[in-house]
């Protein structure tokens, strides 16, 4: 047991499914053609890409013409936000987003604010980390052109009221984008039901590789591309198509929804087991994950101690978890998400995220509870703050 890694950081990234690897393989060395090429190798590549697009469109309940491949979740978010803002700025220059978005959204909006003359407002969240719809409504202005609210939060797993926001946006004629990166494989991605105009996904959050994203974009919305070049992806994202990853992300998404109920049951059981185990064995906890959350995520702060020291101590036991989001691990700031929920700084500095996947086992969860208890007790001994 102690030799194997217990990987509980599946909101940071996931292991690629073996079936996905298998699917991609032949596109490296056998069907390696450029999909734009006018010979068999090219046609085969083109077909593979279009089949992938169709598979995805079925899961999102949209036309395959509305599915675009990108190089990452960050890129999808950037195209949606900057692209729409730049295209429709004549209609208005105000954008609404929330205070708990991923930096791909927050920093894009901030950039538009700083450098391109846009204004933006941040919707507050409640202590559960769920956006305040009334506050959102109050922020809408006549010149609001875009609302971007994430579907599920990466740190806490909190599910946001996308359908409702979508309805409000539609009534007001405001474009609505959702960063659904953390929802894939965990919640329905039916864009019709969700009332979204644009939706971003990232392959590596659901057992496809890192470096491939999807942007759903309703026909009729035309973001200005970030790249200019060839005619790929209807000019929205030129670059020779990454055929293996496009095939891979479609396969992974299909697996995720084909096996949805099974994974959900398994993972949710483990989450509840972890929750009960932690709450029974450790005190001085602050739960950061609300009831209405994705089934794989559980986030706690451990009073009196800081997150990084828990991380490194758990790593000594080969348990992988994270504090804040992986993307900000280079920074010293406390989690902006936990802060936005009104927690004190010291609590925000100490949040630990457990995010599970289909590959986790009961044995791993038991082992994690045991080691976590040891670790928290040990570090608390060093701390001036006793619980």
């Amino acid at each position, binding site marked *: 047991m102690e030799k194997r890694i217990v990987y509980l950081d599946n909101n940071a990234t996931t292991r690629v499914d073996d079936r996905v690897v298998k699917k991609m393989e032949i596109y490296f060395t056998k069907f390696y053609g450029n999909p734009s090429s006018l010979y068999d190798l090219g046609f085969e590549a083109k077909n593979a890409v279009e089949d992938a697009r169709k598979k995805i469109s079925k899961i999102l309940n949209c036309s395959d013409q509305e599915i675009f491949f990108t190089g990452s979740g960050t890129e999808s978010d950037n195209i949606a936000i900057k692209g729409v803002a730049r295209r429709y700025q004549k209609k208005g220059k105000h954008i609404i987003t929330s205070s708990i978005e991923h930096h791909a959204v927050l920093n894009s909006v901030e950039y538009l604010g700083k450098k391109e003359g846009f204004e933006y407002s941040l919707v507050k969240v409640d202590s559960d980390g769920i956006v305040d719809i009334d506050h959102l409504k109050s922020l809408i202005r006549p010149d609001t052109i875009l609302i971007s609210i994430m579907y599920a939060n990466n740190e806490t797993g909190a599910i946001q009221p996308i359908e409702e926001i979508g309805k409000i946006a539609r009534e007001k004629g405001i474009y609505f984008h959702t960063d659904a990166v953390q929802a894939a494989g965990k919640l329905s991605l039916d864009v019709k039901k969700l009332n979204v105009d644009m939706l971003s996904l990232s392959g590596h959050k659901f057992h496809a590789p890192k470096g491939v994203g999807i942007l759903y974009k309703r026909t009729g919305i035309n973001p200005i591309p970030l790249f200019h070049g060839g005619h790929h992806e209807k000019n929205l994202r030129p670059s020779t198509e990454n055929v293996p990853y496009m095939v891979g992300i479609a396969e992974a998404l299909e697996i995720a929804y084909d096996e949805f109920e099974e994974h959900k049951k398994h993972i949710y059981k483990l989450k509840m087991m972890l929750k009960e185990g932690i709450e029974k064995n450790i005190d001085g906890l602050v739960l950061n994950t609300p009831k209405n959350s994705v089934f794989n995520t559980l986030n706690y702060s451990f009073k009196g101690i*800081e997150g990084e020291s828990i991380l490194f101590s758990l790593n000594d036991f080969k348990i992988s978890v994270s504090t804040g989001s992986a993307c900000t691990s280079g920074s010293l700031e406390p989690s902006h998400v936990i802060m936005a929920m009104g927690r004190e700084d010291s609590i925000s500095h100490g949040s630990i995220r457990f995010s599970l996947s289909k590959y986790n086992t009961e044995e791993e969860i038991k082992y994690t509870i045991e080691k976590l208890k040891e670790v928290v007790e040990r570090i608390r001994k060093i701390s001036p703050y006793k619980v």
Partner: protein
Amino acid sequence: MYSKTVMEHFRNPHNYGKMENPDGFGRVGNPQCGDEMIIYIKVKDNVIVDVKFETFGCVAAIASSSITTDLIKGKTIEEALKITNKDVVNELGGLPAIKTHCSVLAEDGIKAAIEDYKKKKLKENNND
């Protein structure tokens, strides 16, 4: 990311815990910044004969605290005051740039504890 020495000190920190009736006591940093450090010293004949720390913070903060207590133990007050954050970093076999402030905190901790010791002594002397 961290040197072997940092990890050793983090895993088995030296001299941690509360000290009853210290001769000097320094509290630096704050939990808002993610690091807080308390240094306790016992001084006899101008020599730091015992030192303890309590730290809320990251791996680098805990390791810096630990090594700093090692560094000043047995040193005279004057020697201890000469210890800089660079010495802490060196002893640790380096720190990631982004974590340098933890070594600065440790230096500040010693200074604060010694300051406190000096103040107390002055008071005592005055009371004499």
